[in-house]
């Protein structure tokens, strides 16, 4: 068991951190305040090799793995969890194309997405339900070599900026009359396809989340990703591994933000004639945040390492996502408590960390869904 990153991974982390320090950290608070999504950073992150870090070189990627991908998300989320949401959603869609697309599809879409000049996403959730995947109503019918798509998706990140989005649609029924689904790429500008309302979120601002409306949108037959009827397994695999890994990493980044800010504040804040870091009550909070950070981190990177080794990691990612996101809510609340009055003043980041943490719970599967998955696996194995 080697719990250390390689020298190269440390160098990558330092390079990502340098980029974050210059391009993200100084602006994150303002993005949150203005509900501004920094689309201009996508090409810059493309140049840094952040977006396509896990994509093979022949498709414009860097040829590394999910450990490195998750590392970049942690670094970004430490300062802007909202921006990290845009990045991970983009990567989620890319992963679907990479894992299940044809060679033509990969060559057509991935290079621009690695470069950040094209933005991707994966749209599953509908007004009728997100957790209830089998209940999706969006439908795609094959007519004259085209898919005609009708339906609505909601709470979709990158809804308003995506240039090519992978959307799950009902394309048939099985022998028991249950709906079967497929993944189909819809490109921006297609007639009948457009974003709808954009949500004004409590947290994870710095990313766009909204509706997608398909009204007789027609796309070529070859926009099908993977086999027809495989939509649910494809979406679940990508959300399960790439999506949950990302949420775990983003939550880990938030916890690290809470940890660093808690230490800084408690060393500088003088009360009763000495820094509050000398008070045991504050020390206990800090210790709890630290343990939450280390545990979230270990679970996240362990799952990523399994995936990079080609081993199944769905349950590990589920556990990491559940633990890290709940821990981020705890840690950020503790930070607010440590900071006293300052914790509820918007000039400081504590409130934003907490709002961002709360926003993480419902993305990539709620905590309840994760627990169902974990219980299912546990009851089989133990």
């Amino acid at each position, binding site marked *: 068991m080697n719990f250390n990153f390689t020298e*190269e991974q440390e160098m990558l982390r330092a390079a990502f951190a340098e980029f974050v320090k*210059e391009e993200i950290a100084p602006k994150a608070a303002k993005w949150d305040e203005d509900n501004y999504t920094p689309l201009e950073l996508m090409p810059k992150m493309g140049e840094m090799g952040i977006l396509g870090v896990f994509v093979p070189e022949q498709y414009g990627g*860097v040829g590394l793995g999910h450990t490195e991908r998750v590392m970049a998300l942690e670094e970004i989320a430490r300062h802007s969890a909202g921006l990290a949401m845009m990045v991970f959603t983009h990567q989620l869609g890319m992963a679907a194309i990479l894992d299940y697309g044809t060679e033509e599809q990969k060559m057509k879409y991935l290079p621009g997405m690695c470069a950040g000049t094209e933005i991707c996403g994966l749209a599953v959730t509908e007004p009728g339900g997100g957790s209830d995947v089998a209940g999706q109503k969006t439908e795609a019918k094959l007519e004259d070599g085209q898919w005609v798509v009708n339906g609505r998706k909601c709470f979709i990140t990158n809804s308003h900026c995506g240039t090519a989005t992978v959307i799950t649609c009902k394309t048939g029924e099985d022998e028991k009359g249950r709906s079967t689904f497929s993944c189909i790429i819809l490109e921006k500008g297609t007639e009948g396809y457009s974003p709808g309302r954009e949500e004004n979120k409590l947290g994870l601002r710095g990313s766009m989340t909204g509706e997608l409306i398909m009204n007789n949108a027609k796309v070529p037959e070859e926009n099908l990703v993977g086999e027809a009827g495989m939509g649910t397994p494809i979406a679940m695999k990508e959300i399960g591994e790439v999506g949950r890994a990302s949420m775990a990493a983003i939550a880990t980044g938030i916890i690290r933000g809470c940890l660093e800010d808690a230490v800084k504040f408690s060393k500088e804040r003088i009360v009763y004639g000495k820094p509050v870091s000398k008070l045991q009550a504050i020390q206990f909070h800090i210790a709890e945040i630290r343990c939450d950070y280390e545990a979230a981190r270990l679970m996240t990177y362990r799952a990523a390492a399994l995936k990079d080794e080609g081993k199944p990691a769905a349950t590990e990612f589920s556990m990491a996502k559940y633990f890290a996101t709940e821990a981020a809510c705890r840690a950020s609340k503790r930070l607010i408590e440590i900071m006293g009055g300052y914790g509820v003043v918007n000039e400081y980041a504590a409130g934003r960390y907490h709002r961002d943490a709360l926003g993480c719970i419902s993305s990539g599967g709620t905590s309840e869904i994760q627990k169902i998955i974990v219980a299912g696996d546990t009851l089989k194995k133990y």
Partner: protein
Amino acid sequence: MNILVLVKPVPDPEKYNEIRIDSQTKRLVREGVPTVINPTDRNALEAALQIRDAMEDSTVTVLSMAPEFSRDKIVECLAMGADDAYLLSDRAFGGADTYATSYVLAEGIKKVEAEKGLMFDLILAGNESADGATAHVPVQVAEWLKISHISRVCSLNVEDELIKLVKRSEDVMLSFQGEGPAVLAVTRDINKPRFVNAMGIVKARKKPLTIWSNEDMKLEESRLGLEGSPTQPGELIAPHMGRAGEPLVSGDATAADAAKAILSVMRKAGV
């Protein structure tokens, strides 16, 4: 054009407020201060990379005299885009002043040139290092090599093998034109160094990094380190700059009150 860039790993300048002197041992305590490539050396490397990228058949080599644990900083230079790197590393080199350091670097440059069978047209370096900030080493390396040197270069480009630069002096900007070989020491405003990115880090794996100790360099021990330094260090002092820090005005005073208080201090001081 073949370009060499001298780089020095130094304690991170952003953390210099944390450096202290141990009151018992009187030695420098820099635990917890990470090492980085001297900031203006990155400007020098960026300048070299820009010249190389604009000219065919050009290379950028990085050279450093540093302890072996700084190796990852040299790899960082390769990741930023340098083609190859040489690290001169030996206990005997340590403790050297700029005279002995520049001697070793100059000998290193000669050895690299002999290895590669070429002469460097340009040797670039940051104007001064963040830690010692003497600005001596680039000049002294040039003197050992008996080539030209110009410091405080704030603008540099190469057109058809002709080197054009601007040097910033106190009262004037001096424009020069000429050819190498020469040592040019560049200032921090000459350019904005590119980020090290993931692609560069992956490519750096395959780039050659050669480490030479004095067994390879074969330099006389008496010319190295403290023994080879014509200056010797004495005591280290951390100047106490602390002052009272009294509040200018009372707790709920306004900016206008602060302004009046400032004026009152000014009047008392007679300015």
